[in-house]
Structure formats: C-alpha cells, structure tokens
C-alpha cells in the first residue's frame, strides 16, 4: 500500500501533471537554456538536485517552520541549494557552467520549485515529498530534453554534437535563437493539448495560467 502511494506520487509528475506541458511552470530557465540537448540536461539535473534537496528539508522541518514566515523560509532553503549547485557545477564542469551562465542562480526564481514546497512538501511526510519532487523533476527533465533535442536537431542538424544529416542539410538557424524557443514550446503545447483532448473529448479542459489569480483579477 505504502509502496503504491509513493509510486503514484512519482509517476504523476512525469506525464499527467507534467510541470511544463500540463502546468506551464518554470518557463524562464526552460526556454533560455534549451538551445542544445546537453545544456538542457545539465539544467534539468541542477533543478532536480535543488528540488529534491529542498523538498526533503522542507518536509522534514514542516512542523517547525512557523506558518507566517514559511515562504521566506522556503526561499532561503532553495537559495542555499542553488548556491551549492552553482559552485558544484563551476568546480566539476566549468564549460557547461559558462554556457548556462546567469541561469543557474535563476533556478531560485523557478516557480515550479517554490510551488512544490508550498503545495506538497510542506504538507506531506518526507518520503512522499521526496518521491513527488523526484517525479516532478523527472517530468521537468523530460520536457527540457525534448525541447532541447528538437531545437538542436532542427537548428543545428545534430544531437549531442553528433551530425545526423548529410552535407546537404541547411540548418534552420532560427530554432537555436530565442524565437525558436517560443515557437517550439508553442507547437509542443498545442500537440500535447490535442493528445489530451483526444483522450477525454467530452471533458472541457480548464486552462491554467501561471498566475491564475492575477489574470482573473485583472480581467
């Protein structure tokens, strides 16, 4: 029983509640670093480390952290893990660190991470919280990788730096430049929506905005 429960928490993040395709969270780092598959994977791994680490800490101390200042506590915990990830990458793989540049510190501002602390880790026992974080991070990694792979194949004719096509391939440069990020994600989201709509055709899909409350108030 216990086993099934944590398995369920793990699997939901990969497909059904995928943070990128289903919830459209964490877009800033995602679009900025996915111009090649290897950068996307490095970013995904760093995010996974931060998400799992901070979920573990937050969930362990969930009864100690006062309710009123919980958001600040979460942010400080997250920022600590991001600093660790930043310095670790700098020490182990300086080339990748240089490539990702300012976007490693910006993991702090990834709404996906703070969202999981608030919605899950601060309410459930440590084991479930870690499984949930692992699942969400895997879903994020899958999304980053698919975006990075599509952009690198179309824009550079290569995957992980290995040429896929012959001499006659004309690289679609725009795909590795910023507009390509927006366009690729847009088409992936439309395809995902179509895939889901086909499965549950009767149930109208609710659109979710990143800051739903604000947009409703604004309208």
């Amino acid at each position, binding site marked *: 029983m216990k086993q099934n429960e944590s398995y369920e928490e793990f699997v939901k993040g990969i497909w059904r509640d995928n943070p990128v395709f289903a919830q459209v969270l964490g877009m800033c780092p995602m679009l900025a670093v996915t111009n090649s598959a290897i950068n996307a994977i490095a970013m995904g791994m760093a995010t996974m480390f931060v998400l799992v680490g901070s979920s573990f800490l937050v969930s362990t101390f969930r009864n100690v952290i006062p309710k009123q200042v919980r958001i600040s506590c979460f942010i400080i915990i997250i920022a600590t893990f991001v600093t660790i990830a930043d310095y670790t990458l700098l020490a182990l793989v300086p080339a990748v660190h240089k490539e990702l540049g300012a976007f490693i510190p910006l993991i702090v501002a990834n709404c996906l991470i703070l969202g999981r602390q608030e919605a899950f880790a601060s309410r459930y026992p440590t084991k479930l919280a870690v499984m949930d974080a692992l699942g969400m991070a895997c879903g994020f990694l899958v999304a980053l990788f698919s975006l990075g792979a599509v952009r690198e194949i179309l824009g550079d004719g290569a995957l992980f730096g290995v040429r896929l096509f012959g001499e006659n391939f004309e690289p679609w440069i725009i795909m590795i430049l910023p507009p390509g990020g927006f366009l690729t994600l*847009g088409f992936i989201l439309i395809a995902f929506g179509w895939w889901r709509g086909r499965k549950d055709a009767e149930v109208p899909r609710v659109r979710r905005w990143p800051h739903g409350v604000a947009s409703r108030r*604004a309208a």
Partner: protein
Amino acid sequence: MSGQLFWILISAMLVNNFTLHLFLGLCPFMGVSARVSTALRMGAANIFVLTITSVVASFLNAFILPYAPYLRLISFIVVIASLVQIVEMTIKKVSPALFRELGIYLPLITTNCAILGLAIFQTNRGYGLFEGLAFAIGAGLGLTLALVLMASIRERAELADVPALARGMGLVLIVAGSLSLAFMGFAGLGAP
C-alpha cells in the same frame, strides 16, 4: 560617460530585451497580458521595482559581497523582497491612490526572475551605481514595451477566428515567438 549610459539603456530595452531575448519575467508576460491597461500598470510596477533592485544590488556589491561572495544569491533575494515589502507599506500609507494602481502587482513581481536576473547580470557585468540605474530603467521599459505589444495583440486575437486547439498558451507562445523574431531586427544596434 552619458553616451555610454544611453547605450546601456537602449541595449537593455531593445537589443537584449529581457522578455523576448533573455526569457526573463515570462510569468507576468503570459499571465497579465490580456488587457492593455493592466499591462501598462504591470510595466510601471516593474520599472519601479527594477530601479530599487538596481540601487540595492549596487550597494550590496560595493559594501558587503566582497567579504562573502557565496552569500550573493541569498542576500539579493532576502534584501530585495523585504525592501519591496517596506516600499509597498510606505506607498499604502502615503498615497492610497497609487497603491490601488500598483498594489496587487508589487508582491507578484518581487520574486520574478526579471528582478533577480537584473541583479545578477548587473553584478556579472560589473556595472556601478549609474550604469546599473540605466540598465534597470532600460530593462523596465523593455518589459513594458513587450507587455503592451503582447496585450494589444491578444486583445485583437480574442475577436479573431483562431482554431480551438491553438487557443490559450499555444497561441500566446507562437505570438511571442513572432514578436521575438521582430525584435531580432534590433541586433547590431547600439555598438557605440
């Protein structure tokens, strides 16, 4: 000197537009760009917070961080978030009308990536107080420009005959892609 400041401003506003070129501050860009009037207010609040952030980051860089570089991230976040909170309370007290205009947006943008991104870029490029200010105002104007353009397009798109499948996020992203493509035309501008 002033010429250089001008180019920093233009570069942050058009060439390296925060939203369309560096992908910073995408959450408000997607979430609050349904109406032009709200987009304008969001932009104004952004310029305000960015300017404060830039000043704070300059001071932290000059006086505190040389002694403890590993505290950079944590101190940026904590100091900026608390300062914006204080400013928000002050505005509420001093000018309730302005608070109603900007109020709900201030807390929303405190932890958005554009704010933190500004502080980090400013540090990485070694900008001083005045260069940082020009950078912040340019970035804020750029964000406002992108938000207003996006909101105007979305107001029109509501009346257009868009396929049901593409409505929502997909359409917004594809429009953003085209805008970003247009902004690439500014590349090369600004080399003094």
